[in-house]
């Protein structure tokens, strides 16, 4: 909105909802196109029809963008409540070359990963959020057994280094330092205490950043630390990644 107004693309330093005062001071609604795609259906077929589909708290369907180590890539429409296993194996056609699934990453660079052991979780905002993986705009990245979760996290943070506008300190400097530590761990130069320092930085960055980018930048880090902590530890202790490394 700041860009449309002709200003620098930085978050508005205001505690005012855009629905109250947004672009040029007027009430504004800013949503993903994918969210808007639901609106005509609700208007045409009614809310009763819409809410009859899906789970208790997640209604309707979701457009998922399947990518990564999966046979069928592309956009699919899935009813809420479908399990992740059904999405990966029935809809997505499974993992190429007979490899095993390691994790499913939701929500892109600010999202989180779900390990294979939790694959029977249904597609549901609350269920996945509980596991540290927000559905977000529906990006679903499938990762096979050869993937290093440390490298995936590093990749996302590196992406966010360029996406961060750099205005506020916790986001700009937090991402800079987290990326530096992750790079060291990935290069076999990790030190004892690195995991704890990463957790401390992510807590401050998550709590004190100006906008949602900084607040959620540590999402992949926190979710992989939750589900794949042993991989970080092995990287630091043995100076080597237990996963077969693959270029991302």
């Amino acid at each position: 909105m700041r860009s449309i107004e002709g200003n620098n693309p930085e978050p508005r330093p205001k505690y005012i909802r855009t629905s109250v005062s947004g672009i040029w001071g007027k009430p504004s609604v800013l949503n993903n196109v994918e969210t808007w795609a639901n609106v005509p259906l609700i208007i045409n077929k009614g809310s009763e029809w819409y809410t009859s589909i899906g789970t208790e708290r997640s209604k309707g369907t979701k457009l998922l963008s399947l990518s990564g180590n999966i046979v069928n890539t592309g956009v699919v429409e899935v009813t809420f409540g479908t399990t992740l296993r059904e999405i990966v194996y029935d809809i997505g056609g499974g993992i190429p070359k007979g490899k095993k699934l390691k994790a499913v990453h939701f929500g892109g660079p600010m999202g989180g990963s779900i390990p294979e052991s939790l694959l029977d979780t249904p597609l549901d905002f609350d269920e996945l959020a509980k596991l540290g993986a927000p559905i977000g705009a529906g990006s679903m990245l499938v990762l096979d057994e050869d993937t290093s979760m440390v490298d995936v996290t590093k990749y996302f943070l590196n992406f966010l280094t360029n996406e961060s506008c750099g205005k506020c300190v916790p986001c700009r400097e937090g991402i800079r330092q987290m990326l530096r530590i992750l790079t060291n761990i990935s290069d076999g130069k990790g030190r004892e205490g690195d995991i704890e320092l990463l957790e401390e930085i992510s807590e401050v960055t998550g709590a004190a950043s100006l906008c949602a980018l900084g607040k959620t930048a540590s999402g992949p880090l926190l979710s992989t630390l939750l589900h794949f902590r042993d991989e970080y530890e092995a990287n630091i202790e043995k100076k080597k990644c237990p996963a077969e490394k693959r270029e991302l």
Partner: protein
Amino acid sequence: MPGREARIIMGEHKKMSEITLQIDGKEVKAAEGMTVLEAAQSADIFIPTLCHHEKLEPYGACRICTVEVDVRGSTKLVAACLYPVEQDLVVRTRSEKVDKIRKMILEFLLAHAPYSPQLQDLAQEYGADKDRFEKESSFCILCGLCVRYCAEVKKKNAVGFVECGARREISFIPEIASKECHSCMECFPLCPTSYLQAAFVLTESFYTR
């Protein structure tokens, strides 16, 4: 976003509705439209700031003014320089969480400007270790005081931000700087690190070469 003048007029206008909030257990009266920082300052309660300047629009970038507020049953961490006061708001300017955030922000910034007196003073207060993070090549802590002063007060835009994220830096626009800066230099004393002066001198040297 209304300009500062409009905001002040709106603030004056709304002064009729005085509200009461609590800061560190002390009852504070404030006018609607004021920020928590302004209310605290009026009651002589200190909240540290780095990017704030009374002549400039609130910016909310350094986050050192982060405070804890209880509002409608939930506790939030907010930037005092931006957060508007409201009736019965409870503010804590120090808490375990607030201190932890300020300590790390200082450690991030001390990696850039370890000798900034302002940062050193705050580091002592919050127990921040200036050597926690590897030293960075740039002194600039990107508070934006120079950039915003030049844009908002002088209306010249001789200095601006370039690049984003961790690559962000300040840069003088040679075409404007060569005309305007020699007779002004009012942004120099605003800088908490002296980086600005160095950058300016550098730009100047390119032009007098």
